[in-house]
């Protein structure tokens, strides 16, 4: 059965975000590691980083506006049951860590309004509601430190702001690597990637065992 679980605004946001993240990571590495990486000049990398950063902020606003005005927001909090959520997360983690190798069925089957498994739901909420906004905020402060000097000083100074920005950057580098790999764990290697392009995901008709 094919389910239309990725509406067009989400797909535009996702691929813009994906390209933006890659550019931000690459330009960020160039900025931080001049001498070790010399693909483009420091100044060019800064300009790319700043430009793409603002594109990502606009993209984040698009994502937020879509979900705030759409019933698809239920994908992020389909059921506010912490106990059930943690049990589901544990099952999903167990599946990825062990069950998948034995050929166990995936404990989660997506639906139109519940497309994230419990692990995804938790990780995406942490990223989109905490890490990404903090990264945007610290990025804006670093974009013009003097303009936002009062806020920079309030949080302890430019080095503190930068350290937070870099720590989240490191977390995103790890996330991107794992995210792309997990994307290959559909019923085929490319199934999830195709779904994120067409909007349609192939799912089993039968209800999975709980």
């Amino acid at each position, binding site marked *: 059965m094919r389910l239309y679980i990725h509406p067009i605004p989400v797909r535009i946001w996702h691929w813009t975000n994906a390209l933006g993240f890659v550019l931000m990571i690459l330009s960020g590495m160039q*900025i*931080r*590691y*001049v*001498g*070790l990486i010399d693909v483009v*000049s*420091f*100044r060019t990398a*800064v*300009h790319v980083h*700043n430009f793409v950063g603002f594109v990502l902020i606009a993209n984040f606003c698009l994502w937020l506006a879509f979900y705030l005005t759409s019933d698809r927001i239920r994908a992020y909090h389909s059921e506010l049951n912490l106990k059930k959520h943690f049990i589901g997360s544990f099952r999903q983690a167990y599946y*990825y860590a062990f069950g*998948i*190798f*034995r*050929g*166990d*069925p*995936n404990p*989660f*089957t997506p639906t139109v309004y519940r497309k994230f498994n419990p692990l995804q739901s938790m990780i995406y909420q942490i990223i989109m509601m905490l890490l990404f906004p903090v990264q945007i905020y610290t990025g804006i402060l670093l*974009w*013009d*430190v*003097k*303009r936002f000097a009062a806020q920079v*000083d309030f949080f*302890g*100074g*430019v*080095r*503190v702001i*930068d*350290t937070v920005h*870099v*720590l989240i*950057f*490191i*977390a995103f*580098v*790890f996330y*991107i*690597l*794992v995210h*792309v*790999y997990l994307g*290959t*764990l*559909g*019923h*085929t*290697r*490319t*199934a999830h990637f195709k779904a994120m392009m067409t909007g349609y995901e*192939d*799912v*089993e008709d*039968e209800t*999975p065992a709980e």
Partner: protein
Amino acid sequence: MGPISDSGSAKILPALLKNGFAVAAIAASLTLLPVGAFAAEPAPSAADQACLGCHGVAGMEKKLTDGDTLQLLVPPAPYLKSVHGANGCTSCHADVDIAKHPPEKNDIASKRSFSTAMTQVCRACHADKFDQWQNSIHAALVRAGNPAAPVCTDCHNPHAVIKGAAAEVDQVPCKNCHADIYTAYLGSMHAKSRLGSKDSYAPVCSGCHTAHDVKPVATSAIGLGPEQACFGCHAGTLEKHQEWLPNAALHFEAISCPACHVPNARRKVDLMLIDSKGKARGTEQIGVPLFDASASSDGKGIDAQSLWRLMQTLNKSGIAGETVLRGRLDVTTGPQAHQLADKSKALSDCATCHRKGSQAFQSVTISLVGPDGRRVGYGANADVLNSPFSVDSVRGFYAIGGTRIWILDILLALAIFGGVSIAVGHVFLGWMFKRFGLYHPHNGHGHPSAGGDDAPKPAA
């Protein structure tokens, strides 16, 4: 320290009033020098002729108590051309009782004591300049007992002072003490411009340091940026830098102009202890022993952990308000600061500083302001800028790449290694399970193909 003692003026000024008329009357009756001797210069008054009759002749000198010799010669021609020539000798030397001159006994301890006392005479007419000088680094050093710190007559020869002479490149009095800086200045764009055109308004020493309220440029710029020294002439500089330099305003705050505009200079980071209002902490507030105790014995200065402990101590010791470190990249020596080059040669390659191991961050000092207004610097180990402790102790200074914290580099390496390892390890485990027959697909949602091929998995 109080102001310079005016005990000298207590003797000199009343004498001026008491003896002025007598001196003039007696001197007027004397014609010891022929008027023709001053034919090329403004004619001296009769009183001045009387003085110059003796003091205009070579060989006039006086033995001082300290064994030194004070020259009493006043060459007539320069004196009469000087701005003081029209005033007459007695306008300054009112303490001379012409009836008893030369006195049988007039002990002068030293040249220094004499010239210091005479500052009060200058003050009588130049009160505004004297007050400015009182606030200068020079006066602070005089009060501190520095015998080389200049008083009025060390810069201005009172018997030959010409208006505007001190603003001529080859006549600035500063070169007498600051010869190395003057030599460096002569090679700068400022001196070349000044010497190359009469219409040039490029600065001599006083253009940046002021003429009497002399302060080190770097000190006067604390909390204000370098605009006092440079922006007075170079208006619109920030806007021009903003056209190509990201975070230009931050660069202006954290980097001195010479750090980039003297391309071959050696640079250092000065971490100044400031309070929450941006005012520099003084040694009297912090206590020098605290720094001495923190400095490592290996001669490399305060290390990162010691600095962190020091900052913790300072912020617990009851000093009013929070104490933080504000960093500023500067050149290492005064002469280097004056070798300003043509702007086409200024550093504009970001990679000069924004790379690990940049020379700019290998030399670090931690400084306070001493009682005389000068900085008191303590050497610090370069690791204070890139240690994990710096997140807390050196919060206000950071140069991307150049002072990056090494532990974050390790974390990034671990993140990349971990992310790749998870993928590779997962694929490998999937392959192993299949290889040893442990993979048995069950009926269920599309089975992932860890370790398998790209073909759809059949439902069991």
